[in-house]
Structures are given as structure tokens and as C-alpha cells.
């Protein structure tokens, strides 16, 4: 998996996040900022909607594969999780 893959996924995730939250400013969220709690301050419903979009776009069911949802810590960790799964499948 190349860094370019992860960064392309992260850019797409920012677009999805802006869509599910209706907050265009999240397009500027850096890869390393925490999505929940202090940080982006997502609520848990927005997180669940994001995971639904991820499943539709990449076929990766994060909620089923990651019991503790650690993949959702930041956009960077989520992008790496998805990129690793997509690469594993291809």
C-alpha cells in the first residue's frame, strides 16, 4: 500500500464527512486530528453514517471488522484501514 493510496482515500473521506455532517469546513481537517471528543467533535451518528458511506464506496465494513472502532480515531487511521483492506482484496 502506497502513501498515495492512503492520502487519496483520506481526501475522499473528507468529502464524505462534509456530506454527512453538512459542515463544509471539515474538508480542511488534517489527517491526524481526532474525529470524536475534542478535535473534529463528530457525534456518533455522523460517525455511523460515515461508516455506511465507506461500506458503499469501498465495500469495507469497518463496524464488522473493528470491534473497538479504533480505525475511526482520525481520518488518517481510517484511510489506512480502508487502503489495507482494499489492497488485501485486489
Amino acid at each position, binding site marked *: 500500500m502506497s502513501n498515495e493510496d492512503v492520502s487519496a482515500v483520506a481526501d475522499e473521506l473528507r468529502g464524505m464527512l462534509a456530506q454527512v455532517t453538512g459542515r463544509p469546513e471539515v474538508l480542511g481537517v488534517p489527517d491526524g486530528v481526532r474525529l470524536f*471528543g475534542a478535535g473534529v467533535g463528530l*457525534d*456518533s*451518528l*455522523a460517525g455511523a*453514517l460515515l461508516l455506511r458511506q465507506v461500506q458503499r464506496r469501498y465495500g469495507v465494513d469497518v463496524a*464488522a471488522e473493528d*470491534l*473497538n472502532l479504533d480505525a475511526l480515531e482520525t481520518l488518517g487511521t481510517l484511510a489506512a484501514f480502508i487502503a489495507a483492506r482494499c489492497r488485501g482484496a485486489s
Partner: protein
Amino acid sequence: MIKCVVWDIDNTLLSGVYLESGAELPDADRQLTGVLHQLAARGILNALASRNPPEAAAYVRQQTGADFAAVECGWESKADAIARIAAGLSLAPDAIAFVDDDMLERAEVAARLPDVLVLTPDEAAEAPDWPQFSPAVITAEARRRSQLYAERRCRQAAAAQFGGSREDFLRRAGTRITIGPAGPGDLPRLHELSIRTHQLNSAGQPLTQAELSGLLAAPEYAMITVRLADDFGDDGLVGAAITTGNGASGGLAAPVPAVSLVVSVPLIMMSCRALGRGVLDALLAWLCRSAVADGAAELRIPCLISERNVPMRLALATAGLRAEPASVAADGRAVFSRPLTGELPRLPDWVTVE
């Protein structure tokens, strides 16, 4: 259980076609107008999805005298309109019914949103007799539900205008969260929450009013309620938790009976209407802090692992709870836990503990 009915306008709520009627606009369908009000009185929301200009919705509101929690007027797909209504109201598709006289519209929605209950106007006329439209209890919160959603629309519009962070907005909106012990008067609402909550329900099984009453009386359990209000409106009782262990008093009033090192939380449930307002995070922070105050070293929250309650699991993770992947039991539950040392989740200063 259906929580929202999305209605078509032409030849459904109106006995005619709005745009084809010239100067003489069609009357409201009397039978379905009755259904609108009957459902609203049971706490079921009504919404509109119509291929019409927005004036048609205003006309229907005036003719029927009904409140609509969401209105989608436009010429795009009705499945998209229903998906937007569901997202705006934080409802899952299986909590929504859709009524349209047009067979093609019904077919499109049925194909794209298979969980939505799709009905003809004739079927909708009988819907009040069906179990999925007949909640067993109708609480004060239910009767005010369409008003609560109207307040919610105002709050969301203000939040979209507001430039600062979510926390700044919650503070500016005068958010007040009150955590306190449950009383017998809360039982009907707690029962209703146990039936209606899915996305934010850790146990994933409803409790009867008798079961809840038994838990309330049992000395080894504490039942905690969460109330939410702000300057836009009062949402009333939006959530609850049941705790056991050396937090049996829940840190509230009664003396702690025996000291054990673990506080367990067999149930957390929260209305989706409260989502995005920091209520579940506040409850989890309080559960940690109250367990610490009672001398516990660990907080445990068993949670059903399902597709629907992913928001619950996200909130648990945010509060620092983790489960062993190998520990998922045959019944689909995993025990999430965290040590009560180190940095605990923060309790915002607008939370009042009674």
C-alpha cells in the same frame, strides 16, 4: 414500530392534483387528514415528500391543520427525499412509512429503500389499527414530539449559522443536561425509550414496564435518568442507564452497601433526538466519575454488537472503553470496559447532577 409517515400530496393528502387545479385548489382528503391527527396524537411524526413547489406544502399544512416534521418538495427521486428526511430526523429507514397513490413512486421507494414500509392511501387509512402504528404507551414526550422536532429544526438552523465549535454552540444555546435518580413516574417514558431506541441502546432488547419497575425497586440496581433542555426547547427525559456493583446507589443519596471493585452498566439507552448534543458523552463521563467516587477501579458496559447500534459503540470507544474481540459471546454481546485511572472523560459544566 413506525416513527414517521412520509406522505405524498397529489391524490393522497389532497383529493386532486395541486398544480392542475387552476383557481379552485383541491380539498384535503378528509379520511387521511383524520389519520394524520390520530398518528400525531400517538407521537408518530408526519412528513411530506411531493413533486410540487413548496407552496403546496404550505397549502396542505393550512388545509389539514397538521404539523410536518420535515418537508421535501421538488422533482427529484422520492427515495432520495425520504433518505434526507430520515437523516434529518436521525431515524432508521425501518422506522419510516411512505404513502403514495402512484404505483411507480411506491415501486421506486420499495426497491431503493427496502426497509421503508410502503403503503397505498387505502392502506394508510387503516394504518392506525395496525400494531406498528400503535405504541403501547403514549407519554408526555410523545404527545409533544412534533413540537420537539420543530424546535430541533430551529436549533439545527442556528447551529448551521454558528461559526464556532460544537461545544461553543451547545454552551451558547444554553444546553442543560440533568442527571438524577429515576422515580416511579418515569417508568412509562423509560419503557417507551426501551422500545424506541436502537441506535443508542446497549442492551438491544426492550424491557416491560413491570421489568423496569422491578429493577427500580431492586436495591442492587440504580436507575439513572438524563434530561435535556436548552433555550430552543425542553426535550424532557431523553436517556437512562442502569448500574450495578458498588455503584448501586449510583453515587446518589443511598449509602454504598458493599464495596466491589467493578461497576457494571447493564443498560444505556438514549433518544436519537439527543444525538449531537453531547448527552451520551456526558452520561458516560458521569458514569466513570460516579464509579470512581464509589471506590470502583473499573467500569464495565456489556453491549450488543449490531449494525444498528454502531453509534452506541462509537460513544463507548470515545469514552475510552474497549472490548476484547475474542470476548464476543454467543449472544452477540461484548463487554466494554475501562480502568478508572488516568484521564477520565470530561463532564461539561452545563451538566447538573441531582
